[in-house]
């Protein structure tokens, strides 16, 4: 909603987090964002409210307070068991008009990215996607949103001065989840889903949950990549196992591996493959030819594992592990499993 004057803006309070529900469970990204919201709310001297829309989730709200929420607004209705974005957007609009939050943040997941842009248009608000940083401008209390653009080549800071609430999405694992405080308490506000919310509705006919989540290179927070040092397709099976254990990870490959037929081209990182800007890039047995480096050099943190300590990849890496990857990786997999 338009808020051109100070007086109008002062009507909006509190930092909202839209919870991510999957198969009836609140997802970790919600806790990460609650932690981030807590910091913002403390600066604004206001509260953190988490909006939970789903079916059969009334009993799952306690954890939200442990992570920093003051209030949980819950809309619990069987009609919300599938992802009905239009209905959720309509509910969000009603709640926003009723309670006037100052900020709304949501996970940049497939659901979040379908829902919040729709909400932002319906409420005439500004929305910044995939923020890597959220802070408060000490001068006027505006939310400052930082995000990468241009394939990660540029960091942009965005502000939404004249519209409230200010909206942002944040990818999972970008913010750190706070230490939960089980003693913390909060309030629950129950809201109903109205018939008018379902005026525009899609029919969910079938839902399939996969046990194995295969992340593609563009969306993964972590990429575990293999090169000629993997010696064959079996080496890539090892990397796939590693990726599965980590969760949210994708398997990448150098051109040499793809050209040897060891892994499909869809996994190729580099000049004639994909360019990635992930949080963590683990290069296994990749020497680091220019064409490959061009595809992954803007990753935040690079780990290289190789027998040879002098390859270009080992030299640009933040951490260079000198050793036999066929022994080290199974040990890592064991280590993660035992956590």
């Amino acid at each position, binding site marked *: 909603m338009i808020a051109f004057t100070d007086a109008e803006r002062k009507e909006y309070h509190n930092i909202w987090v839209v919870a991510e529900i999957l198969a009836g469970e609140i997802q970790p990204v919600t806790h990460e964002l609650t932690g981030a919201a807590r910091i913002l709310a403390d600066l604004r001297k206001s509260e953190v409210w988490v909006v939970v829309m789903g079916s059969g989730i009334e009993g799952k709200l306690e954890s939200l307070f442990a992570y920093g929420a003051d209030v949980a607004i819950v809309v619990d209705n069987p009609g919300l068991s599938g992802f009905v974005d239009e209905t959720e957007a309509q509910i969000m609009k009603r709640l926003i008009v009723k309670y006037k939050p100052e900020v709304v943040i949501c996970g940049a997941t497939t659901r979040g990215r379908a829902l919040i*842009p729709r909400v932002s248009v319906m409420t005439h608000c500004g929305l910044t996607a995939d923020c890597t940083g959220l802070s408060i401008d000490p001068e006027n209390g505006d939310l400052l949103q930082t995000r990468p653009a241009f394939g990660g080549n540029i960091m942009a800071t965005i502000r939404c001065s004249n519209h409230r609430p200010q909206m942002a999405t944040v990818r999972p694992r970008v913010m750190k989840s706070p230490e939960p405080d089980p003693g913390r308490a909060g309030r629950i506000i129950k809201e109903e889903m109205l018939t008018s919310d379902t005026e525009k509705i899609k029919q969910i006919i079938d839902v399939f949950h996969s046990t194995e989540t295969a992340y593609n290179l563009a969306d993964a927070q972590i990429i575990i990549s293999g090169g000629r040092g993997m010696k064959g397709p079996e080496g890539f099976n090892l990397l796939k196992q590693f990726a599965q254990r980590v969760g949210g990870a994708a398997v990448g490959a150098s051109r040499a591996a793809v050209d040897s037929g060891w892994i499909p081209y869809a996994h190729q990182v580099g000049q004639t493959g994909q360019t990635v800007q992930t949080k963590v890039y683990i290069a296994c047995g990749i020497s680091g030819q220019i064409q490959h480096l061009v595809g992954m050099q803007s990753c935040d943190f690079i780990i290289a*594992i190789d027998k040879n300590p002098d390859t270009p990849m080992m030299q640009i890496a*933040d951490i260079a592990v000198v050793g036999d990857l066929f022994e080290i990786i199974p040990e890592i997999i064991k280590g993660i499993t035992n956590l």
Partner: protein
Amino acid sequence: MKIVVCIKQVPATNDAKIDPETKRIIRKGIKAILNPFDTYAVEEGVQLRDKFGGEVIVLSMGPPKAEASLREAISVGIDRAILLSDRAFGGSDTWATSYTLAKAIKKIGDVDLVICGKQAIDGDTAQVGPGIAAHLDWLQATYVMAVEEISSSSIRVKRMHEDGYDICEMSLPAVITVVKDINTPRVPSLKGRLASNKCEIPVWKPDDIGADISKIGLDGSPTRVVKTQPPPPRHTNTKKIEGSSIECAQSLLRELRLRSVI
């Protein structure tokens, strides 16, 4: 069946420079390409038209040279193209962009389906597709990996999620955004390209679509870019880990935990 595919011409993202005043990208001297995600939307539009008959139109908001991308779409089988181009549209954020495209779609009239690519590689926001749906007050389906059925009144799609997929059915008109899994975009042929050079592409301005001036361009954009800078430089110290395989693994596990990877 009348289908509109919304496309964007984007700078090839590897070299980017920012105008310090407007905080927007300086578009001179960088190669301009059809947004890669949009090629899947174009292909889907052409395939659906081939299967079910009707007309598929491609629409873009951009500077005059965005015409090249519209022609590229025509060269793979799109029936006709419309370019929204005017100084007044410049500096739009996703709210203003989706508003403008929605007005144009209303002006085209009787549209059954709007197809967008998942996101543009310069902005990377993925907001315009759902934004168009909201401005039009139509149903939406994002991350569509397959169109299973379509009729004059409804569409059934497979939506991709992190943990699997769902199948949903919605009444038309509707907006869908598509992911790469949906098809394999055909490469333009020389024949198609030569034919597309002969097509007339009308240029629409704010008056042509009845746009509210306060809702377009920089002034119509709720968000403002206030600062741009290069990302923090990569630190040059390489930390070396050596020792037995078990020691290496332990050290690495520690580092991964430190970075919330595990």
